């Protein structure tokens, strides 16, 4: 017997992973949640049939969404993380001594419950005393905050399901309001390769650019995401992700990483031409 999980990366392209066994399945009020045991990637979490994390490659995503902003904006104390029920982003943040408080806002409590059961090594940091877990819509949560966070990380699903509100101009505007004067927002920024992802990427870029003084896009190689080439957004009220990178400071923290390093930090903002063109002729890049 062969068991395969298949995700459509586009209407005409499929990505399949052999399954050892399905471990869990649930339809929450927001989405379908599945956990599989796979020979290649270890445990794998999918939401509405889209791969969110696998044990084998989650380090890439979580390194890049956390350490890039943390090496630019120094001594971050208060962080807001939206989405990220799997705990990986929180785990990386908790490695910084400067961080005093993290608000995790996840709309679907079931994701946290399932991840606590099947990914205990990732979710352990949710019990860190600095972390407050809020089961709430991120768009709603951030509206009530003003001048409060040094860093906001939007670790969302794609903009076609419950994550839709986290790709809107009103959300980015409310985040701007919730950030301190030199605060930074980093988000999962889709991908430029397949048409639907690319459209979502462009929309997110336009909206972020209309709200923030600085908006730059950076990339990472993530094997289980569509096309393998994934993008992140770096937005701020002034801090530049390269000019304001303090490599010495970050290296002095002694944080050991498997993907991120400060050389890669400088390089990951250098985008392929087709991405620059898609983002609007490289005006901002």
């Amino acid at each position, binding site marked *: 017997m062969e068991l395969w999980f298949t995700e459509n990366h586009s209407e005409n392209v499929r990505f399949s992973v052999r399954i050892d066994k399905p471990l869990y399945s649930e339809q929450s009020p927001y989405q379908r949640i599945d956990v599989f045991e796979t020979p290649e990637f270890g445990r794998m979490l999918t939401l509405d049939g889209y791969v969110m994390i696998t044990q084998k490659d989650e380090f890439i995503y979580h390194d890049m969404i956390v350490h890039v902003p943390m090496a630019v904006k120094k001594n971050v104390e208060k962080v807001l993380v939206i989405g990220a029920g799997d705990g990986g982003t929180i785990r990386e943040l908790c490695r910084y001594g400067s961080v005093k408080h993290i608000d995790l806002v996840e709309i679907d409590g079931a994701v946290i419950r399932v991840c606590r059961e099947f990914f205990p090594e990732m979710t352990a940091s949710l019990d860190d005393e600095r972390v407050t877990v809020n089961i709430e*819509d991120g*768009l*709603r949560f*951030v*509206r*009530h905050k003003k001048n409060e966070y040094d860093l906001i990380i939007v670790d969302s699903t794609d903009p076609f399901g*419950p994550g*839709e*509100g986290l790709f*809107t*101009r*009103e*959300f980015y*505007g*409310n985040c*701007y*309001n919730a950030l301190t004067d030199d605060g930074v927002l980093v988000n999962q920024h889709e991908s430029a390769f397949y048409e639907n992802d690319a459209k979502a990427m462009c929309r997110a870029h336009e909206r972020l650019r*209309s709200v923030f003084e600085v908006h730059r896009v950076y990339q990472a190689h993530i094997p289980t995401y569509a096309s393998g080439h994934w993008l992140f957004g770096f937005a701020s009220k002034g801090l530049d992700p390269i000019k304001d990178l303090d490599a010495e400071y970050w290296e002095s923290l002694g944080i050991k990483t498997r993907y991120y390093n400060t050389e890669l930090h400088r390089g990951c903002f250098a985008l392929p031409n087709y991405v620059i063109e898609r983002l609007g002729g490289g005006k901002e890049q």
Partner: protein
Amino acid sequence: MADQTRAPIYEALKKYRADRIVPFDVPGHKMGRGNPELTEFLGKNCMSADVNSSKPLDNLCHPVSVIKEAESLAAEAFGAGNAFLIVNGTTAAVQAMILAAAKRGDKIIMPRNVHRSAINALILSGAIPVYVNPEVNRELGIPLGMTPENVEDAIKRHPDAKAVFVNNPTYYGICSDIKRIAELAHAHGMLLLADEAHGTHFYFGDGLPISGMAAGADMSAVSMHKSGGSLTQSSFLLTAAGVNEGYVRQIINLMQTTSGSYLLMSSLDISRRNLALHGREIFAKVRGYAEYMRSEINDIGGYYAFSKELCDGGAIYDFDVTKLSVHTREIGLAGIEVYDILRDRYGIQIEFGDIGNILAYVSIGDRELYLDRLIGALNDIKRVCSKDKTGMLNVEYIDPVVRVSPQQAFYGSRIAVPVEKSAGRICGEFVMCYPPGIPILAPGEEITPEILDYIRYAGEKGCFLTGTQDLEIKYIMVMDEGQQFPV
């Protein structure tokens, strides 16, 4: 008690489709086969329900079977004597109501903030309006309801009037004391007509203002396609038990199509069933959505999402809490500006913006996640766009000076003059901001300098002005100088 789980038109259409009747009648697309592009766009199910009147499907102009049954079920669901399916919009229902109540030269007492369809009906019938000043809330700049005292005064001054016309509620959700006004009208031998274009849910929800039929109205126009969930342009005309059914149907048939759309009729049938069976839960949910948004929007500060606290027992006798009206002037933006910003920058389309307010339509079709998008966008607009509010126009009710009947003015000898040179003339056409479609000027009214100021200001703020022959609204039709008609 009839069986409200039935939907006779819908059932007949399903059977008609299943029977595979061979169509050698109109419409020519023959269940979509003759128009593949349209069928691809709208869907096969939709096209195969677009059929003609016939024996198994009844006839809207003279219903004897399934349409008759659907109308009886609707009458019962709404607590009316009779219900008529209307497929030419609630406009047609309002016009039928007025044409049935008042003939040429008859008077009809109404608030000035009626929908254009009501004044259109006056042009058609030749009836003469007696306007009752709707009070205005100066802070919000919105017209309110009529007080029973003002109505009584109008009745005494015009004891020969045939009917009193009431908005239940206004576009903003404001209700007059319709029950008391109905009693006054009846005590003086007049009919009570209710425009319930925005009041369908009053018949089914809890904690909402009283419905026209329950308040004793003789006729009511109910827009099922607004809060009721049916297709655009479908509506009900309701009449009380004593009203002559056959005469009302004749009046409806004067203007309504003889090719009643089965898409619209089946949508009325299915929606009536849904409301009769589940209306209470549906509107409890809608009410909860509106209350949540109101409280969150008021928390932002600067905006005022108003509600029942406005009620004063007079011109604001009651308020429809499912309506989400928000006053925006305190953040220095006209409602119409917020309306445009929401659409252009945030991808959110709301119902309307006027000079001082916006209205977001909250309904049966809303999703919880979207409620927070609108609230979040309003929060962001305040952050990014708020301005100093000085210099913004304070809207006051401009008492119309009715010089001749709408029909005389509309059909009389007219000439076009430049708008800015029209002060002092008698208007020969409508000028409206759309929506809400309430006339700023109606045929027969004197054009005053303050009205011209208002039109200019509304245009500058981006209101969509309509109604004139000149689509650019540079010229306005006025009555020819030589002709003067006494009212």
